[in-house]
């Protein structure tokens, strides 16, 4: 747990995000039909999902740890990681919708990938509602940990598996070329891969700050 109190990776995250902001808008990109300059959205849209997967994975790991040990801190980490994940989920949806407006024509065009993502979003909203429905702290922690572990594989199936089986317009789905095959070159990779790491670290940082606030509140409210 020492990791979350260290500074170096937070500085790294900020520096790398500034790098991707500058390089993402200034470096050259491949000229492609329909996409044109909107291909730069890859630098901002995809890292949001990488960040979301990172914090949701942390959330599930700490839910499992909570069930094993019953330590209240692990539940706090799980819920704050899930909260941060939902925030990045919304950002991922918004950046995707903006891009879809200029390439597919509509913000929401009933694409399987968009629909699946919306359903997965409901799944995590249900997690928060479930937490609110139980008053007793330990019972709430246990039941929501169980639902969290149950929801994670379903979310993976929804976002990663199902859209690939149908005719989605989304790159990488339904026979469309994914990034890295046709429409990507090395100029883009030097921005995209650092962006993955930077936004994932940023999400972890937000989650740790929220966790630390919750921990202070929890200690303050504890009966001594």
């Amino acid at each position, binding site marked *: 747990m020492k990791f979350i109190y260290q500074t170096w990776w937070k500085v790294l995250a900020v520096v790398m995000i500034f790098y991707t902001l500058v390089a993402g808008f200034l470096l050259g990109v491949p000229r492609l039909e329909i996409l044109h300059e909107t291909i730069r959205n890859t630098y901002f849209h995809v890292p949001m999902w990488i960040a979301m997967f990172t914090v949701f994975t942390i959330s599930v790991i700490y839910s499992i740890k909570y069930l094993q040990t019953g330590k209240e801190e692990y539940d706090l980490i799980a819920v704050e990681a899930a909260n941060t994940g939902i925030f990045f989920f919304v950002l991922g949806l918004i950046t995707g919708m903006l891009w879809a407006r200029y390439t597919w024509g509509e913000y929401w065009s009933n694409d399987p990938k968009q629909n699946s993502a919306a359903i997965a979003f409901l799944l995590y909203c249900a997690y928060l509602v479930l937490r609110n429905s139980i008053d007793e702290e330990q019972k709430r922690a*246990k039941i929501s*940990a*169980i639902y969290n572990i149950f929801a994670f*594989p379903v979310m993976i199936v929804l976002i990663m598996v199902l859209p690939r*089986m149908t005719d989605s317009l989304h790159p990488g789905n339904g026979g469309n070329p994914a990034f890295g095959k046709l429409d990507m070159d090395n100029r883009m990779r030097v921005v995209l891969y650092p962006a993955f790491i930077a936004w994932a670290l940023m999400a972890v940082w937000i989650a740790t700050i929220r966790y630390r606030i919750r921990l202070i509140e929890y200690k303050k409210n504890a009966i001594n």
Partner: protein
Amino acid sequence: MKLVGQTIELLKKEIILEWRSKYAFNGILLYIVSTVFVCYISFNLNPGFKESQGYPIVWNILFWIIMLFASVNAIAKSFLQESKARLLYYYSIAHPQAIILSKTIYNTLLMSLLSVLALLVYKLFFPNPVGDEVFYFVAVLFGAMSFSTVFTMISAIASKAGNNGTLMAILSFPVIIPVILLLVRVSKAAMDGIDRSLSFGNIGVLLAINIIVIASSLILFPYLWRD
């Protein structure tokens, strides 16, 4: 195997209890028949509905929506009807995994039977030529199994969290939507009489979801039951 023996005993108990009262079975059957009848009357208020172009699509989707709500109602009861003392007694004599497994198998059997009856009633009121009858029937059985596995686990969670219907719907619908999408796709292919091998991919994903759900309920239920 001790687990298998316990599961079979508990399953026998569930079936005997249901056989004596026939409450869940008759109740849900009546629910399905009245829903189908309400749909029949309402749709026939519009003349020319059966000849309209969208009729086969509505036919297929309406059936799955009726089945969805019928199974939510049927399976939400599976943990609700047990009193707290009786649950405690089960846990003292049997392994928790045997309990969730027996409930899942029992619900699968119940829902399979009910789905077949529902399909018969539905076809009576809404006649529709199905291209591949056998495959449609198989799709309905797959549907019954998938609904049962998902809803049994969710009802166990919902019963621990105050047992209200809202929570059951909120928790289960995001999980069941992908299942419904796959089922509608498979059954539509069967209805149109499309070559069966084209649906194997969808059935594979459906089976994979079922395996994930059963595996996670087996792992998670032992943590869930303790208060």
